[in-house]
């Protein structure tokens, strides 16, 4: 493999891994903050138990999200130094602001929340969890503004002398509509991911008839939030389609595998292509739907990959401007199918939970628990789609991935770091998964009383 491929694998691997933990952090923070607020208002012990229990899972998940985030911030410079030189003026700004505004807030107040109970006034302790939740979500806002610029560059000019992109309009960069749709889609997705975790874990306890005082209200809260959030995720995604139609038509064509320009465009539910991806073997199409996805009406023209390739060659010079279609096509389908299942499942659970004895139903024994995994597949697919759909560009229309990589790195360096990250991340995932499972299964009593859980001594030899 060449250095570009290795750096891409590493970035993909570390980013996807980071993103396995972040959505839950984004969403679960709001839940924990709300539960603690309810306890503060009502003094109902059950809310305290809920806060403690979900708070514990929140922290176990949070730890990995934070440490893998540091890698993200460093590897632009480490692996993509030419990219960093080119975009530093614009991309660096939201990143620096993210650290200054969001990271400080999130980490400082999370520290106050973990260690402050009984040591700081109760109101301050409550404010701390809200500020930590706001901080995490703010950090997502700034990184998505940075990513939005890579998808749809605005507010810049290319300096003729240095060849670098320079910021000309900060307000345009932070007001980038593409970024804000992305933010809406992502923050709602965080809530949906957290909702499904709460739904699944609560159901696991409810079918065992334990801690119902904690898990019934948790379940109901999550079913409601999950339904609303999934709808917002869908609406955000749909709106993204229209921005893509204007800003990145190639990505749109690629996620649909539309080779020939169509008007009106039909939507492919499933297409089995031959190995080249150019010949349809079998497909199922719904007429008009693709036009609706792309421009909110049923008759617009959706440009095909072939026409766009010709247009791009005329505009940007010779080269291959077509993303890896098999990836864009299938990640889009996985993401969207799961999105619909999530909406339906959350709404169904919300509706079903209104009846007494729902926890005895047969479907309840497996459906909610397995649903925990749904958002994770959708989250990963979504990021892979949006990043790989932009290929060969790293900044759309301005800089290609092949010109962005650090020129000084050797294959050996990259293998060392790639293998190293994979090993460390793999071990961490196993430890983290074990702990999540342990605390999820143990229930709220364990979370309430953990502070007395002191080991007698450390390795007898030392005592």
């Amino acid at each position, binding site marked *: 493999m060449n250095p570009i491929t290795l750096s891409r694998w590493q970035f993909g691997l570390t980013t996807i891994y980071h993103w396995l933990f972040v959505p839950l952090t984004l969403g679960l923070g709001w839940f924990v903050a709300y539960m603690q607020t309810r306890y503060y208002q009502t003094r109902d012990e059950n809310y305290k138990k809920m806060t403690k229990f979900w708070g514990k899972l929140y922290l176990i998940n949070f730890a990995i999200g934070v440490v893998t985030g540091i890698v993200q911030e460093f590897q632009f410079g480490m692996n993509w130094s030419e990219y960093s030189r080119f975009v530093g003026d614009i991309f*660096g*700004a939201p990143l620096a602001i*993210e650290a200054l505004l969001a990271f400080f807030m999130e980490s400082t107040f999370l520290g106050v929340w973990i260690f402050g109970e009984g040591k700081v006034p109760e109101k301050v302790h409550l404010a701390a969890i809200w500020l930590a939740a706001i901080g995490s979500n703010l950090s997502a806002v700034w990184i998505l503004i940075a990513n939005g610029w890579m998808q749809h560059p605005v507010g810049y000019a290319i300096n003729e002398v240095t060849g670098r992109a320079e910021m000309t309009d900060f307000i345009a960069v932070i007001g980038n509509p593409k970024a804000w749709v992305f933010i809406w889609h992502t923050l709602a997705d965080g809530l949906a991911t957290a909702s499904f975790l709460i739904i699944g874990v609560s159901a696991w306890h409810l079918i065992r008839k334990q801690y119902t005082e904690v898990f019934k209200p948790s379940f109901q809260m999550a079913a409601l939030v999950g339904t609303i959030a999934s709808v917002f995720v869908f609406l955000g995604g749909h709106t993204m389609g229209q921005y893509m139609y204007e800003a990145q038509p190639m990505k749109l064509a690629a996620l649909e595998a539309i080779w020939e320009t169509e008007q009106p465009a039909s939507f492919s539910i499933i297409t089995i292509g031959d190995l080249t991806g150019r010949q349809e073997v079998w497909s199922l199409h719904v007429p008009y739907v693709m036009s609706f996805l792309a421009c909110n009406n049923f008759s617009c023209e959706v440009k095909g990959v072939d026409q766009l390739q010709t247009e791009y060659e005329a505009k940007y010079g010779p080269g291959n401007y077509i993303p890896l279609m098999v990836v864009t096509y299938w990640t889009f389908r996985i993401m969207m199918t799961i999105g619909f299942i999530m909406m339906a499942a959350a709404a169904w659970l919300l509706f079903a939970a209104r009846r007494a004895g729902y926890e005895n139903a047969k479907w309840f024994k497996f459906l909610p628990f397995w649903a925990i995994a749904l958002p994770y597949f959708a989250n990963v697919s979504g990021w892979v789609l949006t990043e790989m759909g932009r290929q060969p560009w790293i900044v759309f229309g301005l800089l290609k991935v092949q010109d962005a990589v650090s020129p000084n790195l050797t294959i050996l360096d990259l293998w060392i770091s790639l293998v*190293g990250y994979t090993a460390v991340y793999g071990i961490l995932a196993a430890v983290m998964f074990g702990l999540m499972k342990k605390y999820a299964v143990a229930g709220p009593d364990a979370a309430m009383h953990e502070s007395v859980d*002191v080991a*007698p001594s*450390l390795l007898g030899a030392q005592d």
Partner: protein
Amino acid sequence: MSYEFLQTLWFILIAILWIGFYFLEGFDFGVGMLLPFLGKKDEERRAVINTIGSTWDGNEVWLLTAGGATFAAFPHWYATMFSGFYLALFLLLVGLILRGVSFEYRSKNPDPKWRNRFDWMIAVGSFLPALLLGTAFANLAKGVPIGADMNYVSPNGLAATLGLLNPFGLVGGLTTVAVFLLHGANFLALKLDGDLRERARAISKKLYFPAALMVIALAVTSYIYTDISTKIGIDPGIVPIASAVALLVSIYFINRKMEGWAFITVSLHIVLTQVAFFMLMFPRVMISSLNPDWNLTIYNASSSQYTLTVMSLVALVFVPIVLVYQGWTYYMFRKRISAKKETLVY
């Protein structure tokens, strides 16, 4: 605001972020490295961790902000340094990952083996970044092989990482480790109670002379490996001398059990040493060992005037706010911590 003024301002701001990081994470790293040696029983180890438990993560953000600010204000500095120190930074990241996770996970299982393993990961995860940062900073002062295109001269990577481990780099790394250990011990003496406090004091006393020796070695070797004598002169000026004096008098306070002053003087030493480093660098941000014309300076490595202006406004508003609330958390958690089960947060 003129372009040159903004470039200087951002050099100073990034210097402040690094100085703050060295001061704050300096004792965090020290505490982390001392953890397995100072705490014998589980409660003791937990007490040691809790001295930094609520604040280490916020302290680490100083590093992230320094990185982000460098990216925004001096993209070429960020690009050259981060790609040039590739494997060193990779190891530093692994250290920070292990350490950060361990703080959260070490108490999630009562098994002594489990806890011991994570405690050692905290120690190693504190040692590695301290050593690597010290090595990296020494090499920044010494100069690194940067070519005309601002990139490290290939082939580098493994070779460059081994190149960082030259005598001066090693002295820089080991000095940083030694001083952070001392700084951590002083911090622990200030924050712990009872028997642990006595032990932290005793360790601080023991660590003082090795640390002082390393600092002398660093000072002497700087005259050989950096251009301090031609740029600043044989007389290094008030800042490095004040830094040395601060370290010199700290032993008086350590011996007299005046923990507050011991902590302040060693902190002063760390801060002033970093100030001296940035004064030596200015206006350069990366020194090319191949050709002085290929140095990265605040003038050829910076962002546009527009970006620097925007970032200055953002910093002007938010830096004071951050300083206030971070300072407030130290005030909130100012009480000494004793190794009693009932009072410890796990």
